[in-house]
């Protein structure tokens, strides 16, 4: 994970913002402190009502800043600074021209053809295999060997879909969407609970940095070691759910089985 997240982290340990104006109030005054939660409330309501999320987040940010006693210029500047510092999350869009080119040349169709030729391939098994690969590669630091734009859209989702189509024929939209959502979920679960085992990963370093600051010295190995039980647990839990997905599909389309 990138350094800006670390910077943000250490900024949040210190309650007084670096650019607090003279109007800044100390947080633990009861009345004004609860008011800073207004941004959270706006996000919850806005997301629930399905208002344009960009608008919701911006309004929530401004409201939080005002409630926290920041000056308008400080609010806009903080917003701009953080937006620039987090440009790295937007870099994933650079892959889209290539992915688009691959799609128009038939990548999805080819991936689907290959999967439908493997007799034993099912949606759940395809995703289970990807979960194992994603978790293992992430645990040795290879988090870049995956991702929603790079792997899931062009390869994993079409394969998971094709495995079901090869067995049951054309799928109703609802089932198709469920399979695609599962494909995205597997990528997330795999990387989240794999990367923490890797010593040099942001989260391990962040924990070490935080404990160091508080006078507790630990090696990264010590921290990474204790991520292993959870990693095994999530593989069992999510793996079981993927096999249940297979059972559910089998049941739903039992008269269609080829």
């Amino acid at each position, binding site marked *: 994970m990138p350094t800006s997240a670390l910077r943000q982290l250490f900024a949040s340990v210190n309650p007084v913002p670096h650019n607090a104006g003279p109007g800044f109030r100390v947080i633990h005054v009861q009345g004004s402190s609860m008011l800073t939660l207004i941004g959270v409330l706006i996000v919850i309501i806005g997301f629930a009502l399905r208002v344009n999320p960009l608008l919701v987040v911006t309004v929530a940010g401004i409201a939080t800043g005002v409630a926290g006693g920041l000056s308008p210029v400080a609010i806009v500047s903080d917003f701009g600074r953080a937006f620039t510092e987090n440009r790295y999350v937007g870099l994933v869009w650079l892959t889209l021209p290539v992915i688009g080119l691959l799609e128009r040349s038939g990548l999805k169709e080819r991936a689907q053809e290959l999967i439908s030729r493997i007799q034993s391939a099912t949606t759940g098994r395809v995703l289970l295999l990807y979960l194992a690969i994603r978790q293992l590669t992430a645990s040795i630091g290879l988090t870049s060997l995956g991702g929603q734009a790079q792997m899931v*859209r062009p390869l994993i989702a079409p394969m998971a879909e094709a495995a079901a189509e090869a067995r049951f024929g054309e799928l109703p939209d609802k089932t198709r969407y469920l399979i695609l959502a599962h494909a995205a979920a597997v990528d*997330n679960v795999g990387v989240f609970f794999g990367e923490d085992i890797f010593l040099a990963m942001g989260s391990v370093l962040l924990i070490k940095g935080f404990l160091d600051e508080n006078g507790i010295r630990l090696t990264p190995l010590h921290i990474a070691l204790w991520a292993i039980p959870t990693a095994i647990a999530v593989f069992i839990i999510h793996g079981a759910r993927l096999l249940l997905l297979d059972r559910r599909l089998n049941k739903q389309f039992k008269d269609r089985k080829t």
Partner: protein
Amino acid sequence: MIRLEFIYALGGLLFLTVAVLEFLDRANPKRYRKTAFWGIYGITFLFGSVLPPFATGCLVILMVLVTGWKDLGASKVKTTTEAERRQSAARLRDKLFIPALCIPLVTFLGTLLLPKIAINGQALAAAKDATLISLGLSVIVALVAALWLFRQRFVTSLHEGRRLLTAVGTVAVLPQLLAALGALFAAAGVGQVVSALVGRFIPVNDAFWVVTAYTLGMALFTMIMGNAFAAFPVMTAGIGLPLIVHKLGGDPAIMAAVGMLSGYCGTLMTPMAANFNIVPVALLELPDKNGVVRVQVPTGLVLLAVNTLLMYFLVFRF
């Protein structure tokens, strides 16, 4: 030496190109607003490190206002038909996978090698930026490979980029905006308020409830912030260190590692973690915005319970 700024410029140029293509398409609904949106986003990418933060902030707010009450919607871009794609797949066969695999492989190799290769005593890329720089380079390699293997024109890739980027839509900037919101939450002290609230409700002498408050608090606060990294210092300073470690004598490594992973359970269950949970919805063109979160919630909840028990049974034993 390759600087990260160079890759950001590449991104900026892509977004500006999309803006131009949106403008040139006369049949495009909401054409001017789409042009403005991608144009401003491109400018913030290209000039982000030169512009004063206040100016960037104003641009971002303008960009958000342009999107209005609802999303701008995808643009119609001509691409191949399914029959054409099947034909092309039959012709190109496994060659199709070469550029697709170039992206992760070059990213991986670059991350390993770029910081190690030095020219005139200067590494090709700084170690901390190596992954992002390699991602940018991998796209160039994959693009060249695809253009050459499939005999396509460069401009086709730009149209395809526009097709996919506008299919994702304005949600593309949401992860960055949420990070900015997180910064404002931090500046306004939202974290301290939340940990004070949680701290008020737990019996501080009961080990099980203290552990539960910490793991649940990590998950909940991560769901609010969309980021376990933001929740960790607040919850750990509020509950983990003073209660689990200092008062009850728990092991700090177990407390911290399992605590962070409880936060990750929260990440699975919130639309606030947009790059993981909302971006794929857009990429896979799912009708339900919460489709991915919905699938992840059962795993998140069960794992949170497992984490709580793991911490309770392990943290006081080592």
